[in-house]
């Protein structure tokens, strides 16, 4: 694997060919915000938070799916990018009903952390206030669609790590919602193996363990990467 050199934010970085810009940045200790990225499953480039500026291209490129090239000049934290990230987060907050103060993931939420980091102290877009349900039919887990950002991490985890294919996206556009089997209550699902990987994968309080209360929803996502590395590379990382 040839090693390529590029610069990220002015810093020279070297990584093997085939690495994504995100991976190269992470290895070099440069943080790029992400939401739909999850270690252990493939990237979809959907949240658009990891967009970076690349010299010579007038398009912004998603760091999670763009492969590095020799001599690439990447900028991850310009004013323009910060502006777009802030707007993306505001659009998310306005899209559904995200109320941190009563949420089980308060303090342990990736969306909240990113909004804090971006300095989002208000949302300039009108809240859409869709009427969405909470599915408490499963004995162990709960799903609150009001907090879902459609990152599809739960779907990818269920299909590609567990393999059950229980969760998927239905509908189109703003009507998209995460469904279980044939749009059945989770508790009636025939394919769900109760493994809980989807709950582990969720960045917000949309999927949670039953019995936790506000602020108690803590996850250990490294388990997912652990399973994938064990299965594919036969290496058990501690």
């Amino acid at each position, binding site marked *: 694997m040839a090693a390529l050199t590029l610069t990220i934010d002015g810093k020279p970085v070297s990584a093997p060919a085939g690495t994504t810009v995100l991976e190269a940045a992470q290895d070099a200790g440069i943080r790029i915000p992400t939401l739909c990225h999850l270690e252990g499953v493939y990237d979809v480039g959907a*949240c658009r938070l990891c*967009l970076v500026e690349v010299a010579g291209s007038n398009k912004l490129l998603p760091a999670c799916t763009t*492969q590095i090239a020799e001599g690439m000049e990447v900028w991850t934290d310009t004013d323009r990018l910060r502006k*777009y990230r802030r707007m993306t987060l505001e659009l998310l907050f306005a899209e559904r009903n995200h109320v941190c103060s009563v949420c089980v993931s308060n303090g342990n939420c990736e969306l909240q952390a990113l909004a804090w980091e971006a300095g989002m102290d208000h949302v300039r877009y009108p809240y859409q206030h869709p009427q969405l349900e909470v599915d408490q039919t499963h004995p162990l887990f709960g799903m609150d669609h009001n907090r879902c950002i459609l990152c599809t991490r739960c779907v990818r985890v269920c299909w590609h790590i567990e393999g059950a294919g229980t969760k998927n996206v239905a509908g*189109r556009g703003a009507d*998209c919602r995460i469904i279980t089997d044939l749009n059945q209550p989770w508790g009636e699902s025939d394919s769900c193996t109760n493994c809980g990987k989807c709950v582990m994968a969720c960045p917000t309080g949309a999927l949670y363990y039953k019995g936790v209360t506000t602020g108690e929803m803590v996850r250990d996502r490294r388990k997912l990467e652990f399973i994938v590395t064990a299965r594919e590379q036969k290496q058990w990382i501690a």
Partner: protein
Amino acid sequence: MDLNQLLAIKERELASRKPYTLRVCTAAGCLSAGSDQVKKQLERAVAEAGLSDQVEVRCVGCLRLCCQGPLVHVDPVNELYQKVGPETAPALLERVRGGAPPLEKADLQHPFFTRQFSIVLANSGVVDPERIESYIAADGYRALHDAVIEMEPREVIQAVMASGLRGRGGAGFPTGLKWSTVAKSGGARKYVVCNADEGDPGAFMDRSVLESDPHSVLEGMAIAAYAVGAEQGFIYVRAEYPLAIRRLRMAIEQARRLGILGSGIFGSPLNFNVELRIGAGAFVCGEETALMASIEGRRGTPRPRPPFPAESGLWGCPTLINNVETFANVPAILRNGAEWFASIGTEKSKGTKVFALAGRVKNTGLIEVPMGTTLRTIVEEMGGGAPGGARIKAVQTGGPSGGCVPAELMDVEVDYESLTRLGSIMGSGGMIVMDETTDMVDVARFFMEFCKDESCGKCIPCRAGTVQMYGLLTKILEGRATARDLATLEELCDMVKHTSLCGLGQTAPNPVLSTLRFFRHEYERRLRPERHVASAVQPVTG
């Protein structure tokens, strides 16, 4: 099937031609006005008058002037009759007898017809789309034969490159370059896909080509397959085009039966099969990667590019995706030569473009003009201007991804670059004329509603952004918006344009940006003042 057999079919077909031909348009427009009944009545009248060996009643494709359908063209006198009804149709036989039928004639000397230059539509309205023999009689499949027997694949690609043909689906990417990339990509299996998911509201060029001359598309695809090394082709056609689907199925079956599709085409090593895939009502599936996801039986959500389909497409294999009109140009390019094609059009945009002229214009229908024709020629000369002598306000090109060109700028020569400079795009060819009664903010909102409903929902800027932009446009239309709202709208347009994952989101703001550029006053006059605006405090003097 070899060349002799092909030529024999052509000869037989030409020999069976009768002294008089009544060509009845049976494309969807005229069909909805009852042209199938017209055809039936004509056939009956011919039989009853004992003129069966003198007169052929042929079902053909689009005769261009859709607003005056049903249309019937009479050969060899070269007269086009319009608004022919089933009852009045038999009167056409008067013409055969040398008389003058009491029917409306279209003026074939009108610029609408004389300014057209048919390459893609050369067979439309001439051949019977439901008979392959009719296509062969017009030198159909000759280009495919010559390509596979006399040319190397790279020579075919060179010809397409030299012609300067660019993708007619809207992006205008050099076709030869795309073919070359697929040809060079490694892999045992490659695919050729025809994008017939013409989703732009207001566009019906591809539909007309598929209904009027389906074989030209098949021939183009087969030539492409030979050039890039593919053996399987797909035509992805939207479900809303049942007649096109039916005619394509017939065409594929007929071509297969004659051995023009299948194994060892014309005795060469080329094997090529074409399968039809029907869409199911998703505009986003006109986007390359979404289209491929749909062919793979999944939700039609796009994915980031790179990798491009030419390197990794259907099932990870190199895939060539081109638009219907692009493929339909290929046989003509090979038959007449790349230099011939390159001599038509402008420096960077070669050949012709098919436009669907519609909206507030007298002559609505299908036109094919050389690139470089001005919008004014198209709309005022050919289109005849707005009905009732109303003043034309703007011309919308490129559908929901495009923009409006105001009437003052209608002298622009239509080609890819010039339209982009004006903030619009060529798009697939939809051209809607708008007059003084059209409200431009309403138009912008109409297109935004479309994008909002068709958004796949994968990426946040498009999914949530189109909802917010639609809300802001509604607020403006209803007179509830302030200048701050307008600024928010413009800011959002910029963000959605630059951060969306695919072309749908990236171009969704275009109608807004375009109307803001040329018709800003229509937005501004609707704004109400900001509340609680701190008034300037006058210093106390003296």
